[in-house]
């Protein structure tokens, strides 16, 4: 099963403070361990919300709101996508994230196609598989 690990934002990430070399080296080591264990599928950092936007849909109207957004603790600053056998295994990996001091990471299970019922028809499943294959081919 796949899990998304969402790293919550804080004042520093929202201010665009870049990690120092030690932090980068520690994260690199941690990522290396996950890659070697065959657990890590992706990992990315997000620029501050000041470089982002929100689009709100309501009653057929679209409103674009430019960042920054205020509630830093509810924002996302980065994420990993991992493949593990259980939520407990995901939690064990998260406990080892080399963040010094204060941090919060949310662990969320990713839907797999087998989690959906008959609404996800064979035709729609085939379409999604084809799209994923096409994306993989484009990235090569």
């Amino acid at each position, binding site marked *: 099963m796949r899990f*998304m690990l969402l790293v919550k934002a804080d004042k520093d990430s929202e201010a665009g403070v*870049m990690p120092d*070399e030690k932090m*980068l*080296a520690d*994260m*690199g080591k941690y*990522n*290396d361990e996950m*890659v070697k264990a065959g657990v890590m599928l*992706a*990992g*990315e950092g*997000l*620029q501050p*919300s000041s470089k*982002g*936007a*929100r*689009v*709100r*849909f*309501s*009653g*057929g109207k*679209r409103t*674009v709101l430019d960042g920054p*957004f205020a509630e830093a603790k*509810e924002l*996302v600053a980065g994420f990993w*996508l991992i493949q593990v056998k259980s*939520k407990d295994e*995901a*939690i064990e990996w998260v*406990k080892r*994230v080399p*963040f010094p*001091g*204060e*941090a*919060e*990471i*949310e*662990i*969320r*299970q*990713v*839907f797999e196609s087998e*989690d959906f*019922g008959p*609404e*996800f*028809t064979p035709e*729609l499943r085939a*379409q*999604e598989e084809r*799209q994923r294959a096409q*994306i993989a081919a*484009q*990235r090569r």
Partner: protein
Amino acid sequence: MRFLIIRKADTSTEAGVAPTEELIAAMGRYNEEMVKAGVMLSGDGLQPTSKGARVKFSGGQPRVIDGPFTEAKELVAGFSILQVNSKEEAIEWVKRWPQIDGGGEVEIEIRQLYELEDFGPSEAIDRMREVGFAKPR
């Protein structure tokens, strides 16, 4: 440049309400356009927070808190990653999000991803490049 598109949660996604065939088909058509345009890099949906957890570090010590979490509007229900030439282009794609999703009431956040070039030169960044991080296209 790459953008993370975050589909915010709502009471339906947090309740684990399955999408209708109509919604799945509409999302499939929307994704199809983005794949054809070569802008879509990935996309997935997240299970409700009742199946998740949070790990809070304080003084470097982890503490585990099981879901569900309450502030639905601040939670993430799904995401995709787009490769585009500008934030405006990302916004244009997001504006075309299927209208039937969330009964027409949806909030989507657009966030730029860091690329390895955004960091100064260091061994750690070289190593990340080696293991295939942020593969340039």
